[in-house]
């Protein structure tokens, strides 16, 4: 398949800090990864792991002035988008790289009609006139299965249900036919039954348009359903990355193992759920060395040093000193 293994996104040593009154939060501490064309790449982590921040950095909306991209490069189609001036960056946002935020309710301006909000990105990137836009808007609304799009265009956000609003957001993201789609927890703000619909919709769209997608989530089940490859993030560092099947069958990092072990497996009877001992560290004070060491069952003295990334098999890398033994 042409272009299947071509890299569309390469992130090198990304470091993002947040300056607060109480100190510096090192949200992202040296993250490297690549995403290939037409694949679905997952980024898994708990809250405060830094996963959302990475998504924001990719679209260039890290909250200033507190948040700063301290170092790193993000190569999109070969060019470092961090080095671009604001005008060029604005042309890429929404156009070639699209973003689906977590909460569709707050992402929509309550005073503007949804038809307009869907078409807004299109209007600015294609410099089209209003008449052609309505057609495009209706088309993209049909793609996401919004019923009676011509009428719904004139609605305001508060008149829509949660699921419909998320569809509107997805439609907006698709409107400019982006090369890369980033979805940040696309279902966590929705009811469970709606979640299934939206997941199905996203899968269909990805398959139909052969889109490259980055899925940011804490939901391992979602990752299993949707992703080709997945990276696990802990305290701002990637600790393991592998193709999905490989990761679930053969997790090498103690944190990944803990995560997978704590999934309920549908066993009958009274079974106690496994939980990873300890707690997430205070974001202001990450532990010295490997950030997982305070909670790791396999910790030993070398863990005071931050482990480097090592390849353990084809496409599978892990950041742990002891991955060979455990």
């Amino acid at each position, binding site marked *: 398949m042409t272009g299947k293994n071509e890299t569309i996104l390469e992130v090198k040593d990304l470091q993002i800090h947040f300056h607060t009154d109480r100190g510096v939060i090192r949200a992202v501490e040296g993250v490297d990864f690549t995403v290939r064309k037409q694949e679905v790449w997952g980024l898994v982590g708990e809250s405060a792991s830094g996963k959302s921040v990475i998504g924001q950095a990719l679209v260039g909306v890290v909250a200033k002035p507190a948040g700063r991209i301290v170092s790193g490069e993000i190569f999109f189609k070969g060019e470092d988008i961090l080095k671009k001036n604001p005008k060029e960056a604005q042309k890429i946002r929404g156009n070639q790289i699209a973003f689906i935020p977590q909460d569709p309710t707050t992402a929509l301006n309550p005073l503007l009609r949804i038809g307009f909000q869907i078409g807004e990105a299109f209007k600015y990137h294609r410099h089209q006139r209003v008449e052609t836009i309505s057609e495009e808007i209706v088309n993209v609304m049909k793609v996401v299965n919004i019923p009676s799009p011509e009428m719904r265009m004139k609605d305001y956000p*508060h008149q829509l249900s949660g699921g419909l609003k998320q569809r509107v957001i997805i439609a907006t993201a698709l409107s400019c036919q982006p090369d890369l789609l980033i979805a940040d927890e696309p279902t966590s703000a929705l009811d469970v039954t709606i979640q299934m619909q939206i997941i199905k919709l996203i899968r269909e769209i990805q398959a139909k348009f052969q889109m490259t997608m980055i899925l940011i989530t804490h939901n391992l089940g979602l990752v299993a359903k949707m992703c080709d490859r997945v990276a696990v993030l802990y305290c701002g560092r990637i600790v393991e990355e592998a193709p999905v099947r490989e990761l679930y069958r053969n997790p090498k990092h103690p944190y990944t193992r803990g995560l997978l072990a704590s999934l309920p497996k549908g066993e009958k009877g009274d079974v106690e759920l496994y939980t990873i001992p300890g707690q997430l560290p205070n974001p202001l004070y990450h532990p010295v060395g490997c950030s997982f060491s305070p909670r790791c069952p396999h910790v030993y003295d070398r863990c005071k040093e931050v482990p480097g990334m090592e390849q353990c098999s084809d496409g599978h890398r892990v950041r742990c000193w002891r991955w060979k033994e455990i």
Partner: protein
Amino acid sequence: MGAFILRRMLQSVIVILGVIVITFIISRVLGDPVVLLLPPEASPEQRAYLTKDLGLDRPMYIQLAVYVGKVIRGDFGMSFRHEEPAMKLLLERVPASLYLSLVATFFSVCIALPLGIISAIKRGTIFDRIGMTLALLGQSIPAFWAGIMMILLFAVQLGWFPPSGYGGLSYVFLPALTLAFFFTAATARLTRSSILDVLDMDYVRYARLKGVPERTVILRHVLRNSFITILNIVALQLGLLLGGAVITEFIFSWPGIGRLSLDAIYNRDYPVIQATVVVAAAFFVVINLLVDIIYSATDPRVSRR
């Protein structure tokens, strides 16, 4: 939307009625009209006669009802000092006060809104700091002292403006500026904070995410969504200006209702005082009601269910 407006109108009516009752209570508490109207040498018979004539011998709640009934029709009785109906005296002066208030509001809006908006957009920069420092200073300076200082500087020393009196632009300039002083500073700060609130909203961030140019984000998303809050702030100031111009009118000898009421207070002319208070309060209530009506018409969450 209709239900909302109806409810607000009802509230406004209740508030105005309440104000009328309060003025009644205050003026009764403060003094007996008979004592004020008659010279001290008046005989007891004369007092009794006047008391009956004014209906002051009837029970309090009847007096209140009569009073409210009259006020609703605009009848505040005759001024104690001048031989004219209090309402008439008041209405003669309202245009002057309105003129002053509107010019003051105009000044205020022209300075405060851009200051507040730009300070918010350029949050943290030197512009922001200077702007907000100016606003803070503005709030710390007593307006009437600023008025006096301006008279000293611009009228006495420089001779650019007349120091007092009623008239066109050169006469209204200094008083309006004085009146606008505090309000401009407060409005600038409030505008800035409400724009900041909107700037932090997710939909603003999302619009940027879509690749909308920053200028459009500001115009279409930020300003449009803060419009009603800012309108509220400005309307609040305007509503207060009519009744709050007392000292400014005094300093600049401006023939408005503030001056009138000040004289009335010195002269214990209760009908005029009551009329001024009720009219000023009603003005405030009506302006707020208008703002709420505009709000219900422009916010789709209220205008369509």
